[in-house]
Each structure stands twice: as C-alpha cells, then as structure tokens.
C-alpha cells in the first residue's frame, strides 16, 4: 500500500484514519444506492423502467405510479431558476469585484453569504406567506397582460394567477442559488491577474471592454463551476419548493400551473404512504433523482475537465 508509509507508527495511524474517513464516503454512497434499489424493487418489477419514466400517472388510489410529471417539474423549475439566477449572480460578482467602491465590497459580500445561510424552510414559509401573495396580486397579472398577449408566449402565461405555481417556485429557487453562483464567480473574477487587467487599461480599454474581454474569458471556468454547484442544489431543493409548488402531478404548460418535483413529492407523500407499492414507488422516484443528479454532475465534471485541458494549453 503506497498511501501508508511504513516507518513511523503515528504516521501510519494518521494515514489509516484519513483513508478510512475518505473510503467511508464511497461506502455510504454505495450503501444508499443499494438501499434505494432494494426498496424500489417492488415498484420496479411492477412498472418497469421505461414505463415508470414515461408514465404521467400518479394515482395512489389505483396504485398507478409514473415519474414523468415529477421529472418534468424538477427540470422546468431548475431550468427557470438558473435563467433567473445566473445573470443576476454574474452581475453581482462583476459589481463587487470591478465596479463597487471598496467600502461597499465588504457589506455586499457578507450579505450574499448570509443569504446562503438561511435555512430552506424559512424560504418556504416566506414564499407561502409573503412572496406568493405578491406574485398573484401584482407580478403575475402584469406578466399576463404584457408578455401573455404575445402569440407564442401566451401559452406560458395562461390560467388564473394564484401565486402557487412554477414561476413562484423558480423565483424562490433562484434566490436560494444566487449566493453559490455569485460567491464562486466573485472568487474566480478575483483570480484574474491584475497585471493583465492593468495592461488592458493601459492600452486604452474601457471598464466594459476589460470585463468582457479579459475578466470573463479568464474566469468562465470558475463561473461554470459555480453554476453546476447551484444546479445540484436546485435539483435537490425540497422544503422551500414544497410550500409554493402545489404538488400537482400534471404536465403543466403554463408558468402559472401547479406542478411537482421529485423531492417535493417525496416530502409531501412519504409520511402517509401506507401501501407497500406506494412506498416502493416513492423509493423508485428517489432512485431516479439519485441517478439524475449523478449523471448531470458527471457530465458537468467532464465538461469542466475538458475545458480545463483546452484552457491550460
């Protein structure tokens, strides 16, 4: 074993402890994966894989279960949240690193980090009691009367604006993931060597040109890393969304429709799932999320590695 040096017994124990600590992570992941497969085997044998993934049925009374509506809801809310969050977060990071006067940098940085420290249940309660009424009274009717009048967009803004819908959930999600993206983007902007920036200024570039042509290209990898991190968080976020998404198992076309994500369905229905097949279907759903997150993060990692290679050349 190369990782454990032979001579000093204290060194050896130390190496052993660190090795055990890191290996335990792998064992825990394998253990969770195994339990998910074991518990969902009943639903797997009843519904199969393709049928479960494509079926939009979710009927505990008839014991018919499919994951399609949940997967759809998860992707739509996450994608919409990223659309809101990424430009805002990058904007924040640019402001803090390049634009803001020094005395503002500290307070804004701390405010962003505090945003990340708020527990998600608080976002949920705030969303239910504060944001949802604001959305249903002001923002959603305004959207309906403006964008909702355009021919193609019309379908996205149909229905009564109730504030309990995909749009509100995505807004909350985006607020939750902004701190992650923003602080990582800020750190990567800060890594841009000042000598490069100063050279750009020296040859007469404006602030906008420096940001566009020097800072952003230099740090896009870091920003992308931040986006991936927040994607992971948005996929798995539960309590904040559970309060404002409505948990409706339908494929919704409008931003004003209620929907369900995988995690929200689990949180809502796990405690009262009484039949074996119901419980097993919920475990199956959890397995789907496990695999989905794994695949997405793996793709993102690959992407990053590739970009890094290209970049280092």
């Amino acid at each position: 074993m190369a990782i454990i040096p032979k001579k000093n017994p204290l060194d050896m124990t130390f190496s052993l402890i660190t090795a055990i600590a890191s290996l335990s992570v792998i064992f825990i992941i394998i253990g969770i994966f195994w339990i998910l497969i074991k518990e969902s085997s009943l639903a797997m044998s009843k519904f199969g894989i393709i049928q479960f993934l494509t079926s939009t049925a979710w009927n505990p009374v008839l014991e018919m279960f499919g994951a399609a509506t949940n997967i759809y809801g998860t992707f739509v809310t996450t994608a919409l949240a990223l659309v809101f969050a990424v430009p805002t977060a990058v904007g924040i990071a640019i402001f803090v690193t390049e634009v803001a006067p020094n005395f503002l940098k500290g307070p804004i940085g701390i405010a962003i980090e505090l945003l990340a420290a708020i527990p998600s249940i608080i976002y949920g309660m705030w969303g239910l009691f504060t944001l949802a009424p604001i959305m249903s009274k002001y923002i959603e009717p305004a959207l309906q009367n403006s964008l909702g009048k355009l021919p193609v967009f019309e379908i996205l803004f149909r229905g009564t604006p109730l504030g309990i819908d995909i749009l509100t959930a995505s807004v909350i999600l985006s607020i939750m993931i902004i701190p992650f993206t923003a602080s990582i983007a800020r750190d990567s902007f800060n890594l841009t060597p000042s000598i490069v920036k100063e050279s750009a200024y020296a040859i007469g570039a404006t602030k906008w040109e420096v940001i566009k042509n020097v800072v952003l290209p230099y740090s896009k990898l870091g920003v992308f890393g931040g986006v991936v991190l927040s994607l992971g968080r948005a996929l798995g976020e539960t309590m904040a969304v559970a309060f404002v998404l409505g948990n409706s198992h339908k494929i919704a076309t409008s931003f004003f429709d209620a929907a369900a994500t995988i995690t929200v369905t689990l949180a809502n229905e796990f405690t009262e799932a009484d039949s074996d097949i119901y419980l097993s279907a919920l475990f199956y759903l959890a397995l789907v999320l496990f695999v989905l997150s794994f695949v997405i993060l793996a793709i993102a990692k690959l992407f990053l590695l590739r970009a890094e290679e290209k970049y280092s050349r």
Partner: protein
Amino acid sequence: MKRTLFLSLIAVLAFATPVFAQETVNGAGATFPAPLYIAWAYEYNKVSGVKLNYQSVGSGAGQRQIVERTIDFGASDDPLPSEKLAKDNLIQFPTVIGGITLVVNIPGVKSGEMKLDPTVLSKTFLGEIKTWDDAQIKKLNPGLNLPSTPITVVHRSDGSGTTAIFTHYLAEVSPAWKTKVGEGKSVSWPIGIGGKGNEGVANYVKMTPNSIGYVEFAYAKQNKLVYTKLRNKAGNFVEPNFESFENAAETGNFYPKKDFHVWLTNSPGKTSWPIAGATFILLAKDKKDVNRKAVKFFNWAYTNGDTTAKNLVYIPLPKTLKDKVRAYWKSKGIQ
C-alpha cells in the same frame, strides 16, 4: 493538558446522558393529534412522573413502526379493520374527534351564510360545477349574491388523514366521485391547487378570492376563515361546531367488537356534522407491561384531558364512547 481535556470530555458525556431513570412511554404517528398528545403528556408528567415521548411522523409511519414493534404505541388518523389488526396482533381505540370544515372565500359571503349539500360539494370538487352562480348553488342559497367567477378548488398537496376523511365522505355520498377519484390519504385530484398541510390550504383560501377548501376545524377557527353549512344525512343544514361534532360522535356506530373501526362520515343524528373522524391509538398485544402504562395515560387523559383538548380545538369523545373504550381495555386484559 491532554489528560484534563480527556477527563472533562468524560464529565461532559456523563452529564449528557440522563441521570434519573425516568419511566418513559414512546409513541409515534399521526401529526393531527400531536399538539394534544404533547400537551397531555406534559400535564401527565407533572402528576405521575411518567414521561411520554411522542413523535409526529405521520399515520403511515406510525402504523409501520408499531407493526415492527419499534415504539410502544402508534397513532393513526384512519382506523384499521379488525382483520388487519388481528394479523399484526394489534389493539385499537379512539382518543379524540377531528372535524373537517369547508371554508370559502367569496367576497361578501360571511361565516355560516352559505349552504351546501353533498351533491353540490362533490360536483364542485369534481370540477362539474365551475362558477359560484351555478343554478344548483343558487337554488340552495336564494338570498346570497353569488359572483359568476370561476371557483378555485384548494386541496391538500401532502398525504393526510384529513384528505382520507374528506374523500371517504365524498365517495360515500357521490357514486361519481367513488368511480372517478376514489378515497385515500392522497388521491388524484381532478382539479384545483394543492396546499401543504392545513396551514397551506387555510392560507390559499384566505388569499384567493372565489376559492373553496377543506381544513381541520381548528384551522378554520384559528384563521377566522369563512365556513359553510352543510346538509347532513337527516336533511338538516348544520354548522360545524363542538356540538355538531359531538352529536356525530354519539350517533356514529363505534363498536368495540370491530375495534372501533368506523368513519364518522354521514352520521345519522339530527344535528350531526357529516364530515368528521376519530384519531386512533394502536397498541401491540404482546407488550402487556408497556400497554398498561400507555392505557393508564390515556385513561387519565379521558378523565382529565377534555379541557385541554377543547382549548386546542379538538373534540373530546362523548362519555358513552369513553366507557365503551374502558370496557374494551378490560376485555383485552390491559387495565
């Protein structure tokens, strides 16, 4: 230095574990009666010294845990049939009644003004009655000025005993509901938006004009929501209140021989509110010693706990039913 650190660590650990060996009873299950059980346990602890832990993990989890014997008693919002109890070697009895209230938010309509009947109610939740000025609603409420706006139906998004009782009632009064939707703790709703928990439904109804929803009596009362009258089996329009729930419990057919397996829906009494249900305790027959402790607690609660229950807006069992349960305990040899 290291040594003192080690010693103080041991001291901390020693104090962290309870020094006094207190008698404890552990229960888990339904979330609906949890605030009451916790309040009862607090008072009972003061008079008896027995500590009762209750975890509100949901009825389904409560049932599973008592079947696996990991807890001393389970709590469930839906009664189990005797065959299932016999299979898992369990005993079942009710503790308190929960009533389900219909709440609406229609501009200009006040509490108790709107009258509904089972047909209109089921058609509304099926999405067949779409606006408040529908002829069938108007016929029941000739005096009310009802808007022509669409009805927003609000239901629970999470699995719950409240939904189980409500859908059981709808399935009982409407054959169409029974075939199209059915009954259960969570069902595939034809229309409407889902709120998480009673507080979620109460809040949505409060902030959405022209909506209707169903919540536990306590939530309607505490949030000052506008409740409706409903026609019961005897043909009378009744209001949801302590008296009409108690009447439902008195006229409901609780049979000790069936382990009290009954839904308090559509009770035949003249003043009965038609949508109610008891919440239940499950005990494992083979754990005699623990059962005695648990039954002692619930017997104390039957005798001394009614005021606490009413303060927390639960409906205590009528005396006749309490006596039936006491006789049931005797017959099972645990009192």
